[in-house]
């Protein structure tokens, strides 16, 4: 089965052999690095280049979501962690079911799929495993 396409192509690249890369944008002029990818640098305005970020970081904050809009792909309760990547940017992602990372914990990002059939998309989640 072909891997599902990414839910957000500015956040990850999925390749035919089912591998994936975490994407960011780096400014060649000032070095500022962001996630997800942006076309221009928010510090100096130059055109950025897309780079691969290491999918590891540290938990800055976390919550367990109990109430969502009905169209959200995840069924509550589910965890959400804010992670500072070792490469600098900060992102929020859902936490892998059954895990409960604490502030300051070292974590990794992993790929997981949401949706069914043609609507299936690959997204990112936070996990304590393999970090």
């Amino acid at each position, binding site marked *: 089965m072909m891997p599902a396409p990414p839910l*957000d192509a500015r956040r990850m690249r999925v390749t035919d052999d089912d591998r994936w890369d975490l994407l960011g944008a780096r400014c060649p002029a000032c070095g500022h690095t962001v996630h*997800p990818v942006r076309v221009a640098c928010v510090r100096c305005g130059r055109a950025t280049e897309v780079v691969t970020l290491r999918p590891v970081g540290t938990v800055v904050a976390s919550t367990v979501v109990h109430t969502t*809009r009905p169209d959200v792909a995840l069924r509550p309760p589910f965890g959400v962690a804010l992670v500072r990547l070792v490469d600098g940017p900060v992102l929020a992602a859902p936490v892998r079911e059954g895990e409960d990372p604490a502030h300051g914990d070292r974590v990794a990002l992993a790929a997981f799929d949401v949706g069914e059939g043609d609507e299936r998309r690959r997204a990112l989640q936070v996990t304590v495993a393999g970090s």
Partner: protein
Amino acid sequence: MTDVEIAGVGLHPFGRFPDRSAADMVAVAVAEALSMAGSETTRVRAVYCGHGLATSGGGTAAVLEAGVTAPVVNVDAACASSSVALSLAVAAVRADQWDEVLVVGFEKMGRGMLRSARPHDPFGDRLGIEAQPVQYALKASWYLDRYDVKPADLAAVAVKSRAHGLLNPNAHIQQHVTLADVLGSPVVADPLTRFQCSPTSDGAAALVVRRARPRAHGAQVRVRSCRVENQLGAQDPDAGLGDATTARLATAAYAEAGIGADDVDVAQVHDAFTPGEVLRTEALGLCPEGEGARWAAAGRTAGTGDMPVNTDGGLLSRGHPLGATGAAQIVELVLQLTGRAGARQVERTPRTAVSQNSGGGENAATVVTVLAR
């Protein structure tokens, strides 16, 4: 530079008004504001109209219903729309472009949780991560951990808010709650419970902004500073969990007004969720970092306390019709500064007031305004 005053303020009550249009509500707020100012529609030279959900030109149609035929500038800056509108109005009057203008804010909102503040972010939107309660819950979790604060102290902000709302007939939520009620209401995103989240409301507010007139009619409240920044430029090492944007704006606004944080007698801050009030009260320098929730629990930020915050119930209880919120904050401060706040009037009529309004989303505007009588 021309001195600018707010001469009149008006508000259509916040709440659910399914039978009233935005235009109906705007007409009520505008008439009230013009009446307080001793002015009339024909003196209005321009209208700066904030709304976050209305269709393009929505403000233009609503303002016409109020009988105003001056040119209308529609401003969409999410939850900070009418505060950004105020900043434009103040700049225009200061520059002598206009003598007298109106700032209007309104919103008609549906029920239920708002969609993402980043509509072009499929990741955050589809996974529910960008929902405002989740973003504020992350702030709350960071805050409780960093400053060793109890969830009950955060919940005390909502108890205080509801008490203020009961003193404000224009507030959406009229309800007495205890700490146990707040902590026991359904969890939305840990540690935030339902009563710690602002409701979606309908409402409108209006301000008459003009070149200051000595010995004139009206409220005669001076705008000492009204400053805007976006949030991305100030992103800090804590991932923006505190409110570095507000702290920077406050420093600049106090300098422009020639005051210090100690001079602020009453404040309105963006409490879309309880941690919003705490973080922004601290960022404005009105209480020490890490003490905002404990000050609420101790009654210090109540209307009867030594640093009254959100005396009209704030977004949590007055309600949060996005485009109307910033102007409504100014309405309350003008009423407080002129001794018109009725049952919720703080003691010793204040002289200096500050408002803080945040737009949702990572690139949205934050506005800090200093008023004085």
